């Protein structure tokens, strides 16, 4: 059995086991163990995949440089979130409010979610990619409504409805694209495989391919949270349990964006490489940044703030791809995932300590919950692009590549948008940090497990901001080579 298949089957196996395990604590432990196991397999696979694509089951599954890079991010965030889930649900599991049914539901959907995300990344078949993408929606919708109370059910409903409809449009786009490809494939070439699609791309009719890509962009763009299709995102990300929010924001959006970006070289091949598909991403990216800025300014719910911040960063990544900074956009994907994950961990701890997520009702952050407060502050600083965080570096790269490509107006709009978000996002956070503590709230000591969860990624962000390791640079270049870039 190939390792690539194992990468898929291990989470599926964990899912089945989690559905029958008797104790909530055992399920939480399984979450960590399973994540470690899958991450181990991925760690073995990724270096070889960066060299040359790895195939399995005929050519249905494929891990190439781009998917390997994304897989690394997924596994990193997922591993940390699994540990955080242990930390997050642990007390509730002890006092019984995280019961057996809920734990089984969580464990099964957690691994189902992981399996479907991995399938998105390793699928070489565009149809299978769609199936996997819809499965991530289903699994994560189950996670969003884990609490099964009114707001979470409402959020889960909105999420499921909007994303399902959006993704149905992506299915149409997939069919249209494969229909075009079917007309030009010969012999053993399949119109459904990435590897063959990129070969036959230059023979396809540009008109049909453009139409198909529009549907794909709108469809998967809904899932990626690109404005104006982002309306489900704040509700779903804020109502989900915090470990789930971290994965939703940190990597699920990336997976959707990955699906879009995979189609870029195919469309470019069919339209003669004039950058039509890349240019299409620019307005979506800019609108996402502007919309996020507008909503962040009026938001008081911490998790919703972070959710809108995700809309912004997905917009930045799309913009980076569109402006020709493919490498920078991929680097930004990594930086956003790490910083957003830490931010959610801190918010989760704060919300538990203070019993609320309202920024106006929390004060004296640095005094009452020192680690989570400081962690949140640093993470937000990173998210708004303060040097020396690596987010600053990747945003700088995107701006530089944009200017080099002659897209000055777009870059100016981008910098303005990011500047506005700098102000409106820091305002409530700084307020929380330096406002006097609300009377009667005791100082909460962090647990031992919190330290590595929060400090380690933040250190990583700082290091990446100052020094780019040789290996990462190499991986970025290889992954970007799969996509090509806007001319």
């Amino acid at each position, binding site marked *: 059995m190939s390792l690539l298949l194992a990468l898929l089957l291990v989470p599926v196996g964990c899912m089945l086991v989690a559905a029958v395990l008797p104790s909530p604590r055992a399920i939480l432990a399984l979450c960590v163990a399973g994540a470690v196991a899958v991450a181990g397999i991925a760690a073995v696979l990724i270096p070889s995949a960066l060299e040359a694509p790895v195939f399995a089951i005929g050519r249905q599954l494929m891990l190439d440089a781009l998917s390997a890079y994304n897989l690394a991010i997924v596994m990193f965030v997922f591993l940390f979130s699994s540990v955080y889930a242990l930390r997050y649900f642990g007390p509730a599991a002890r006092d019984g409010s995280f019961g057996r049914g809920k734990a089984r539901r969580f464990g099964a959907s957690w691994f189902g979610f992981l399996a479907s995300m991995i399938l998105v990344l390793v699928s070489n078949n565009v*149809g*299978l990619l769609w*199936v996997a993408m819809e499965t991530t929606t289903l699994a994560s919708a189950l996670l969003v409504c884990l609490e099964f109370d009114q707001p979470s059910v409402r959020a889960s409903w909105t999420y499921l*409805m909007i994303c399902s409809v959006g993704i149905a449009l992506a299915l*149409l786009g997939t069919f249209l694209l494969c229909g075009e490809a*079917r007309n030009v494939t010969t012999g053993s070439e399949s119109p459904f495989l990435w590897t063959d699609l990129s070969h036959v791309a230059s023979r396809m009719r540009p008109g049909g391919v453009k139409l198909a890509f529009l549907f794909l962009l709108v469809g998967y763009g809904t899932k990626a949270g690109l404005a104006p299709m982002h309306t489900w995102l704040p509700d779903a990300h804020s109502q989900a349990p915090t470990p789930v929010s971290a994965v939703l924001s940190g990597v699920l959006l990336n997976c959707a964006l990955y699906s879009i970006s995979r189609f870029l070289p195919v469309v470019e091949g069919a339209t003669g490489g004039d950058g039509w598909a890349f240019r299409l991403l620019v307005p979506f990216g800019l609108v996402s940044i502007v919309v996020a800025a507008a909503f962040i300014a009026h938001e008081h719910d911490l998790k919703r703030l972070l959710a809108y911040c995700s809309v912004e960063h997905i917009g930045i990544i799309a913009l980076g791809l569109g402006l020709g900074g493919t490498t920078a956009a991929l680097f930004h994907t990594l930086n956003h995932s790490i910083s957003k994950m830490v931010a959610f961990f801190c918010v989760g701890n704060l919300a538990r300590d203070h019993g609320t*997520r309202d920024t106006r009702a929390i004060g004296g952050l640095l005094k009452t919950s020192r680690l989570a407060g400081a962690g949140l502050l640093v993470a937000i600083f990173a998210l708004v692009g303060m040097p020396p965080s690596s987010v600053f570096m990747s945003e700088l790269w995107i701006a530089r590549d944009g200017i080099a490509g002659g897209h000055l107006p777009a870059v100016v709009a981008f910098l303005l948008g990011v500047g506005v978000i700098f102000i409106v996002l820091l305002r409530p956070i700084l307020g929380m940090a330096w406002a006097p503590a609300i009377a009667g709230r005791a100082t909460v000591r962090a647990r031992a497990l919190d330290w590595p969860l929060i400090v380690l990624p933040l250190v990583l962000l700082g290091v990446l901001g100052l020094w780019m390791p040789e290996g990462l640079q190499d991986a970025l270049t290889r992954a970007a080579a799969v996509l090509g870039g806007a001319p």
Partner: protein
Amino acid sequence: MSLNADLLLLLVIGIDLFIGSTGRLGARIRACALQGLVLAALPLAIQGTGVLTGGERVLHTVLAVLATLLLKAVAIPYFLMRAMRQSGVQREAEPEHSLHLSLLLCAVLVGLSFWISAVMLPPPEAGSSPLGVPAGLATLLVGLYLTVGGRTELTQVIGYLVLENGVFVIGQRVLGEFPLVVELGVLLDVLVAVMLMAVLVAFGHRQDPSAAGNGAATPVGGAR
């Protein structure tokens, strides 16, 4: 055998119009089931009886037809019906537009899809039904209208299903046949999505019958 396909596709359009013109959710769900049935029969009509003597393809087609039949015509309507009974909402309460207008709007959408496929898309290949793309597009647009304009959650779910059906009709037209794993995967995903939606709808109404469907903002707070 393209004639039967023509008639089936006309039936698909007719069902769209019917769904747009009735306010009773039960009738809409039943119409949806009928559309699933038509969709299941469509590959047979397009490929003709020759498909039953085609060796290896037989298993593929039969499996796809059976799966569509079982899921779209039986299982999904069953779950929707149950959700309808549990939520206690039998009809579209104060529809966005009067039903006359809704019917006319659906008719306009049908006309639009005929226009789009005549003007903007390449002509159909010889031997395939000329109605494939317009019928699929019409179904897709009507589904989109129902999801966006529907007042009750169940209408939105039905709209999603109709939209999905439209995508399938177009897909069948441009692709001929789907790889089995894709077709089954898509069907399974739709089934699970509808089951989940049905559970959420039923729960939403059990909790708070009045608040359902008005999309009120979720309150700030909670220790999550």
